[in-house]
């Protein structure tokens, strides 16, 4: 083949690639989807690097998915004039991140810890492996990885198809109707794409379609039930619980000693999920005890009429409209009852 023929092949390649990608993107957008960010280690590390902002400029949030759904970041930032540094991770314990922040001498900011008891008091490696991986990634990030993240941010913000969890080759191959092999663990189904789209600030937002479609909601509640049915972990008690509490107390003391400010939050859940949590983790033995041991303040959603009434579509997370109301109330409780001051909030500006 001569060079001009190779050139023709190259031009054909560009045309085919551009047409295919554009068609795929238009097809996805026509179904109402908008870009979502890959909430992997690089996005998490980007936020982790922001914890060193002055304590009157930002609040750090750790915990699990409830923090990511329930805290409406724009509402928080509009009301307080401060940034949100969202470090919570879906289905994970916040303790490795708490350890990491406590050990970091440079961190002396405000920290809000979401207590989802089933994850917070879990000793299972399943609930701690991902936070450890992300912390290690943050500490070993190379200059090239940081630059790639910046470019990736620009690209990802433009295209729906760059959603690795749903539109990557492996994700789509997993959807093929291939019979499951006996004895191999597999989820019966995954969370539907409509359940949560991720913003660059790491907020998860349920789509309108999810809120309208009860079959999608049932799919997610079914998944929660499946997780509960296969879980062999029992709620921590006795010496295991004591060691959990001791670790938290030690970490909180370290942060407080540096001038940081730690507060615990129990975000809303509802229906059978909440009932199960109450049975497995009685408030006096877990929530109250953690506040007592650490000597820190806490905000339990059931203690305030303004936050106690939410109905979660799948019993565990708030829809965005409710997240806005919840966040407004959270900020109000912090200011009026917990003594938090937000000097940069819009109304206090001259």
């Amino acid at each position, binding site marked *: *083949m*001569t*060079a001009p*023929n*190779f*050139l*023709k*092949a*190259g*031009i*054909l*390649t560009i045309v*085919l*690639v551009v047409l*295919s*990608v554009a068609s795929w993107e238009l097809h996805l957008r026509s179904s109402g989807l908008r870009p979502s960010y*890959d909430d992997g280690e690089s996005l998490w590390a980007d936020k982790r690097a922001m914890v060193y902002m002055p304590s009157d400029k930002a609040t750090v949030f750790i915990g699990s998915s409830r923090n990511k759904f329930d805290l409406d970041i724009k509402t928080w930032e509009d009301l307080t004039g401060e940034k949100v540094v969202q470090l919570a991770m879906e289905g994970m314990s916040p303790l490795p991140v708490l350890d990491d922040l406590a050990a970091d001498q440079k961190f002396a900011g405000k920290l809000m810890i979401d207590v989802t008891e089933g994850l917070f008091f879990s000793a299972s490696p399943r609930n701690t492996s991902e936070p450890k991986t992300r912390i290690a990634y943050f500490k070993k990030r*190379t*200059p*090239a*990885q940081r*630059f*790639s993240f910046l*470019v*990736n941010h620009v*690209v990802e913000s433009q295209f729906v198809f*760059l959603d*690795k969890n749903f*539109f*990557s*080759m*492996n994700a789509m*191959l*997993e959807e*093929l109707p*291939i*019979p*499951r*092999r*006996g*004895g*191999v663990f*597999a989820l019966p189904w995954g969370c539907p794409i409509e359940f949560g789209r991720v913003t660059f600030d790491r907020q998860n937002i349920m789509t309108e379609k999810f809120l309208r479609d009860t079959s999608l909601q049932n799919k997610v509640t079914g998944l929660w039930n499946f997780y509960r049915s296969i879980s062999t972990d029992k709620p921590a008690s006795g010496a295991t619980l004591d060691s959990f509490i001791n670790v938290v107390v030690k970490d909180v003391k370290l942060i407080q000693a540096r001038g940081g400010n730690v507060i615990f939050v129990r975000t809303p859940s509802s229906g059978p999920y909440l009932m199960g949590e109450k049975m497995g983790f009685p408030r006096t033995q877990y929530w109250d005890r953690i506040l007592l041991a650490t000597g820190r303040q806490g905000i339990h959603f059931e203690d305030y009429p303004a936050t106690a009434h939410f109905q979660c579509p799948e019993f565990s997370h708030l829809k965005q409209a409710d997240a806005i109301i919840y966040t407004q109330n959270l900020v109000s409780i912090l200011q009026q009852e917990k003594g938090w001051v937000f000097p940069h909030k819009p109304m206090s500006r001259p």
Partner: protein
Amino acid sequence: MVFNSYTFIVFFIIILILHNLPFSWRAKKINLLVASYIFYAAWNPPFILLLWLSTVVDFFVGRALYQQENINKRKLLLVVSLIGNLGMLCFFKYGTFLLENFTTLVNLAGINYHPAKPNIILPAGISFYTFTTLCYTIDMYKRKSEPVKSMLDFSLFVTFFPHLVAGPIVRPPQLVPQFENPHQASQKQFLNGLFLLCLGLFMKVVLADSLLAPAANMVFNSSAQLRTIDAWMGVLAFSGQIFFDFAGYSTCAIGVASCLGFVLPQNFMYPYAAIGFSDFWRRWHITLSSWLRDYLYIPLGGNRKGSFRTYINLMITMLLGGLWHGANWTFVAWGALHGLYLCVEKFVKDVSTAKVSTLAYANVNEMPGSAILRNKHLSNLALAMMTFFFINVTWVFFRSPDFTSAWRMLNSMFSPIKAGTALLSTLAIIEVCIITFLMVLAHWLMKNTKVLAVAEKLPWWLLGIAWSIMILLIIWSQESSSSFIYFQF
């Protein structure tokens, strides 16, 4: 910086633009040198100092070695270079390993010695650039070629970013002359380079990372006794992963260099079509095996000192070749197995050569199985499959973190485990089977040709379709920025 990252795309576009602006050749070389340092620093900036040290020491020692007439001084200079290069490699790569083994030995001797574990970070590609600089000083000692005249050319030879971190391991005569005169890619070179870059990324991102790595990692990271099918699928997946990962890197490197107008040596030639183990090493990591042959096996005496010494030399070469890959006894075991294979192969060849000469007058057609033997294609295919089988056994030691895991894996592979754990999904097994079959088939069909030769024979529209499928699959796989396996070596 890795080729499969957004950072590299931006970096490469800037380099291409700079290289094609009307600057002087010297300015273009300085651009390439600075770019190469940035390429390396993007991983860990302080380790650039090691590169500089290695470059400066070897440039001046190499020149002195060539010019010095006093044999004792020449030997002293060679020792200085060897200590400098190998000392650095030993400290960074084998420091922890040596200390661990020393500690085990003294503990066995009853001495209670428990030093703190050193926290040594392995600089990316140190094994590659050490071998690159080492061959230069050895060549200068032997006066096999002229010393490089310009420090700029020598620095660029050592640091040229396409080959810096994972090869191909280049020799001075292969690259330095290309820096002496202005080089700019022709349109054909540029397009071939782009095609190879895409092919390399396809091999790495789609085949190695996206389709094979999950199965290989799941199997090799498991501490359970696996079912036979899971163990074999894991080994086959790793067999494909390591090939596509490393050959993908080499293909990218050759493609990137070609876009800039330079030619790097070929590093892979369809190794899974190898007929026998010496053939395998003529096709797998060619620049390393030829380096080991020229700078270790032949200086040890090669096959010039009788059969017994040949076997010993083969074993020493492969044991050190294994250790080059990593500071772990499992790599030594991997090298030992390859050494053993080569020795057995040589023994069989020697014996069969002797037998053939005595049977030269016999009627071959009357021998049992003669029809099959006469069908050269079929017997070669059978031999290639046998070679592939034995190579797969060696990968168990290469991939396993320790001997316990390796034995467990071999046990799962070769003895039916009734209550073994099933790990891989149906989809994963199908993926591994299809890719392995296509990989071996492609190697067999293309074993005597080159990919560009095949691409050039295709009609332009067919090549365009194949090319675009590769790019679309790269985009679709959404696997980016994972390191190449050979970066750690």
